[in-house]
């Protein structure tokens, strides 16, 4: 069975590009434009992984993470941050210690690196 991934990003180009890349890797891909849209989609899909942007209108990332953790159905879904936001190495280490946060990938990303890190997160 194909692993399911939801890409959450307000930029259509990013959603489209990453979807194309990952569909070629045999994942089943869904997309959402922001936090509210993500939770609508989660009513009918349980993904194996969420690729989550940080800078989006609407719900902040912290609010999204908190809401995911508040729900038994979604609290164990793995998450990778895929974002243009620049953080320090110490912040990255701290973020990756959080439950279910598998990786922090900064845009612009290398396609092969993205694929490798997603494979690792889904092992």
């Amino acid at each position, binding site marked *: 069975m194909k692993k399911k991934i939801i890409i959450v990003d*307000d930029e259509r180009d990013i959603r489209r590009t990453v979807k194309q890349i990952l569909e070629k890797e045999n994942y089943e891909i869904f997309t959402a434009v922001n936090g509210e849209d993500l939770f609508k989609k989660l009513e009918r899909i349980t993904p194996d992984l969420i690729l989550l942007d*940080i*800078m*989006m*209108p*609407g719900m*902040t*990332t*912290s609010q999204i*993470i908190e809401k995911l953790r508040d729900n038994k159905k979604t609290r164990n879904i793995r998450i990778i*941050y895929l974002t*243009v*936001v*620049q*953080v*320090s*190495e*110490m*912040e990255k280490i*701290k*973020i990756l210690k*959080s439950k279910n946060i598998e990786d922090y990938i900064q845009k612009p990303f290398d396609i092969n690196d993205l694929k490798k890190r997603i494979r690792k997160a889904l092992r």
Partner: protein
Amino acid sequence: MENLGEVLEVNDVILVKIKSDVYTKNIKEIAKILSSKNKLLFITLNKSSDSLISSFKKYKINVGNIYFLDAITRTFTKPRRIKNSTFVRSPQALTEIGIEFTKIIKKFKPDCIVFDSLSTLIIYEDDIRTGLNRFITSIINKALRNNLKIIFFCLKSDENSRLIKNISIVAEKIINI
């Protein structure tokens, strides 16, 4: 790039439009120039203040002369306490940014303000449209009342957006990089 020092002598509100491939490098260059002689308030909406401090130090920028108003870190993590950094809830929290801006001006007494970036505000424009013009006007007015220079950054690719066009009208000097 034009001589920033000279530009600052005669202009109080400056808009700097930077191409994306040279954006990061030029932010550091400008921060280096400004902080060498001025106390700088750096408002960041897309880079954590922790990461800016690390990268500025590597670039030999005098971070002791910089106060960070960080509007992004709290959106995804609990920030650690950093000297000369204030954290607000999010880039959309314009009232909170405005309040902290006023406090920092009084406490830190900067000579110059850097706003990084207007392009980030565009992401949130639909959510904060009604407050956005008021917010920008407010911080420009506060800066001018306190005899401070203010420099807005944006991506060159966003120059045709409504927000950037509005700022272009009020900016005394526009620099294209």
